[in-house]
């Protein structure tokens, strides 16, 4: 990590370079199970994001008081209490969304991203970086959830933002798009195999872009000495 731009580094890492969904491939269980439509993906993404930012901050703050030997159980306790609080919040304010996401909210406790970031980042870095790392990793994960949810919803039902009112209230009902009432979609996309195949294509797409960029920078590097010589 470059010392001059830790914030920029953290942001680039979480959104792209080390994206939890596409590169670390962590938390695949909720990633696959919940993303049958865009709104579900967004809901779970935001819940994960809040958890991740909070736990990273708490763990980083409590770092001096946690003994090395028992750090994992301590992390789990912190994560479990945070998730419980967030679950109660969602239950109180978005009870319909809570009904849709169901078991996957309490299961955030076991999401590998949370404990992964706690162990790999928050336990070693000061709080001002740790909370940002949690937030950005959460955003990176949410972006993947939303993209996957959008692709699967569109392929399977030909719609986008259906059930948006679960999250944004009745006013958001108009947000839902439907191409045609007679759309017979690729039902497979909404089923578990569709999740695996779509995620595979997303990962392949990311690798393709990275390859193109690497080839591009290499070409630039090759061209540079030549232009210097002129």
């Amino acid at each position: 990590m470059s010392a001059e731009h830790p914030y920029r580094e953290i942001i680039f890492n979480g959104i792209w370079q080390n994206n939890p969904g596409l590169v670390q491939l962590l938390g695949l269980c909720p990633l696959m199970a919940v993303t049958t439509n865009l709104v579900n993906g967004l809901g779970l993404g935001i819940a994960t994001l809040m958890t991740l930012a909070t736990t990273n901050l708490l763990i980083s703050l409590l770092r001096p008081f946690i003994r090395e030997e028992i750090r994992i159980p301590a992390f789990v306790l912190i994560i479990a209490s945070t998730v419980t609080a967030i679950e109660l919040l969602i239950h109180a304010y978005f009870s319909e969304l809570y009904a849709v996401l169901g078991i996957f909210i309490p299961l955030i406790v076991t999401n590998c991203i949370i404990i992964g970031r706690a162990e790999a980042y928050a336990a070693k870095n000061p709080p001002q970086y740790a909370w940002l790392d949690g937030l950005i990793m959460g955003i990176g994960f949410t972006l993947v959830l939303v993209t996957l949810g959008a692709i699967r919803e569109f392929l399977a039902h030909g719609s986008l933002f259906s059930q948006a009112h679960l999250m944004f209230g009745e006013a958001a009902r108009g947000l839902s798009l439907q191409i045609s009432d007679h759309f017979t979609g690729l039902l497979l996309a909404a089923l578990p195999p569709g999740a695996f195949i779509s995620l595979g294509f997303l990962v392949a797409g990311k690798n393709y872009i990275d390859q193109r960029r690497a080839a591009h920078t290499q070409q630039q590097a090759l061209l540079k000495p030549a232009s210097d010589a002129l």
Partner: protein
Amino acid sequence: MMFGTNTSPYMHAPQGVGQVMAQVIYALVPGTLVLLWFFGWGVITNLLLGLGFALLLEALMLKLRQRPILPFLTDYSAVVTGWLLAVALPPYSPWWLLLIALIFAMVIGKHLYGGLGYNPFNPAMVGYAAILVSFPVEMTSWPAPELTSIANINLSEALQQVLLGGASTWDGLTQATTLDTIKTHLRLGETVEQISQGQAFGWIAGQAWEWVSLAWLAGGLWLIYRKIISWHIPFALMAALAGMALIFWLINPHTYSSPLFHLVGGATILGAFFIATDPVSASTTPLGKILYAGGIGCFTYIIRVWGSYPDAIAFAVLIMNMAVPLLDAYTQPRVYGTKGRFGL
């Protein structure tokens, strides 16, 4: 004088992929002709669309993967995949159904895994399963034989159905397949004997199906005679399926169909001789082949009888494809002169 001598190993020149695939295609011809007799133009449109899309997608993927196009196109493996899907789908299938099936077969099932020889799953069955799960209505409405033969449906009507789809009179020309009928009527509490009185049923398993199955059988036996496939897979598959059917039929013949019905009905014969025997995704050792095909037979019976889909060859083949690496690893034949795993 000197005689030219060669050093060991002495090997015969095996047939190339193209020759093997060409003979599989010849063996598919009789069954396809019988389908044509019963279902008319729809079989031809399926076949043309299937082969066209298969070759097109194969060429496209080869180009994307920067592989030589012509040598791979002329190994006919894409033709076999397209042909198998064309005869597996209901005749008069809309063009997009074949296109989606072949995208899943050629792109996802075959080339994303590295092309011919590297695909762990049977490409045709990947495509079939994908659209069966996605479009159950289109996939289970087979046209009624006789009503849709060439004498009754002319070419322009057939093309209209395939390209534009959904003529309102068309619903009257389709009917549930025999396996489907058995399944839905058993749920209504009827017995197998009562259901078999229905007009869709012929001598064993439905008017057209008996003849189609016989024609597949003829083609398949010819493949065994030509040593393109070994007897292990087709016979182990049929034995396992018939064995399962026999046990339950003896327990209660009112709710379980006879072994003969399971052998002749649905895609059993086509699956046993042409689909399960795919040289890439099937097991390669003799014992492995028997276990692999036996597994397919058992799974087919289980899904047909207790699952929610009427036929199950595709799912059973895909499930057992996953077990192939393990089967191959554990069933390596004993090399002559060495001791086997159990010291025998």
